[in-house]
């Protein structure tokens, strides 16, 4: 983009500040909000809204000390257990979404025939069908993994189908003209060209997976971050409850950051080719 500005001020700096300035500003905004939160809770003392500094300081405790009095560390029994189930469901859902979405994307007739069903099923909030999953799989890990996979798969499926269907005809011709094997045409040309849309689906899917793991652990679970959240709430351990909320938020943020890094690496070409 050609931007004409005074020689002494680079365009980027004029618009948003340099990278350092931008980081400082975003951290600054965060700090200001936390300070306001702290001041508000100190002014209007309420047991339901503990001071944020207490909530932060309490995080190591909830991660290491079992609130129910056991000797195990919740970081292992709950946090890692939740991450494990969530990733299992997420990976399954993504794999199925990419596979089914690819078939629908490449195969026009299948897309036309299934589109009413797909549109209907994906419009049903995943949380609304949780009872069905409990009926089918009982309570426990299997149900949670299947439930997350279900919820995640729709976002990935829809995006994959759309990305695969919109591959340019010339690229298909290139694959055929150079006699690439069907596998090489698919994995070498079709999937990479759909990758930007697939990644968009993976990102929404990850957000959905976070929502679904917490929800699925509200009901009949014996461990997990959602279980801890609901348990501490029921026992009126309000600072603990707030700490678990923050743990979940931080976890979601970290997982998103990891996915963004993977995406940035896999789609390096995409940003450049669109300039």
């Amino acid at each position, binding site marked *: 983009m050609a931007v004409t500005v005074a020689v002494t001020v680079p365009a980027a700096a004029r618009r948003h500040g340099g990278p350092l300035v931008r980081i400082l500003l975003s951290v600054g905004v965060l700090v200001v909000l936390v300070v306001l939160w702290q001041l508000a809770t100190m002014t209007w003392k309420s047991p339901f809204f503990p001071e944020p500094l207490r909530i932060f300081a309490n995080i190591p405790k909830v991660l290491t000390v079992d609130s129910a009095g056991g000797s195990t560390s919740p970081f292992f029994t709950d946090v890692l257990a939740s991450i494990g189930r969530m990733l299992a469901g997420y990976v399954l859902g993504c794999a199925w979404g990419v596979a089914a979405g690819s078939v629908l994307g490449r195969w026009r007739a299948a897309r036309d025939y299934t589109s009413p069903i797909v549109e209907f099923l994906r419009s049903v909030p995943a949380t609304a069908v949780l009872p069905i999953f409990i009926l089918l799989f009982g309570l426990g890990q299997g149900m949670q993994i299947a439930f997350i996979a279900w919820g995640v798969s729709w976002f990935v499926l829809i995006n994959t189908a759309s990305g695969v269907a919109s591959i*340019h005809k010339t*690229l298909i011709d*290139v694959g055929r*003209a*150079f*006699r690439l094997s069907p596998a090489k045409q698919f994995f*070498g040309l079709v999937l*990479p060209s759909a990758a930007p849309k697939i990644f968009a689906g993976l990102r929404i899917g990850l957000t959905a997976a976070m929502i679904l793991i917490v929800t699925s652990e509200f009901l009949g679970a014996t461990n997990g971050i959602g279980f801890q959240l609901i348990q501490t709430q029921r026992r009126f351990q309000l600072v603990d409850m707030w700490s678990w909320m923050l743990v979940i938020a931080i976890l979601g943020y970290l997982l998103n950051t990891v996915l963004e890094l993977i995406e940035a690496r896999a789609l390096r*070409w995409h940003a450049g080719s669109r*300039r």
Partner: protein
Amino acid sequence: MPGPADDFPHDDNLDTEYFMTDTPLLQVTDLTHSYGSHLILGGISFDVMPGEFVSIVGPSGAGKTTLLRALSGLMMPSGGSVRFDGEPVTGVPAAMAMVFQDYSRSLPPWLSVEKNVTFPLTGLSKAEARDRAHESLAAVGLLGHESKYPWELSGGMQQRVAIARALAYRPRLLLMDEPFASVDAQTRADLEDLVLNLKQQFDITTVFVTHDIEESVYLADRVLVLSKSPALLVEAIDVPIPMPRDQITTKELDEFVHLRGRVARLIRAQSDSAAA
């Protein structure tokens, strides 16, 4: 001495030199194609001899691209036959390569220039494929750009990558579908000369589709002029101007001027009858 008889044997061990002069590499017989009730190709027949450079020119919308897709085996025509090296074309033959008009679409943007050249190559080691790519990139004047991405290059350079990819594939027949239609005039002239050079250097039989009359004459040994849709072969015009050709001096020759005029008149007659 075996002669071209009715029971013409298809045997690879035959002395190919002997048949070289009278065995076409590409034989197109009464080719027709229609989309629904709309006839695009109205019955086209021609041969392309080994080593020949044939350009196909016609009014826009004449079905040139449809014709090329049928020749390549990318599309099955409704009627007639295409034979490549004596064999009926049912899919794209192994010894055929294509350069498409839309270079920005035909070069996967996630592959480097080198990978763009090597990805269609099979049966070669990594090192062999890389050597082949470097050789082809050198032939099109792009050595030193291997690790760049297509979108970092100008349009003309991208089309050079597509040409290098076709060269590295070592085809016997090169099909080019209006390859220079979307580059500027100077780049176009450079690319035309590049194609002529490569043709001399590698002796690749080429079928070149264009809507540019001057280009069709400048490049070719023979120009096939198509009618408006449904496309018929109006005339096949030999271009007996010797190689090497030059953008300025060749185009000043009386012969060139005459041939260009003749092709242009044929095309204009098509547009006039369309307007009438």
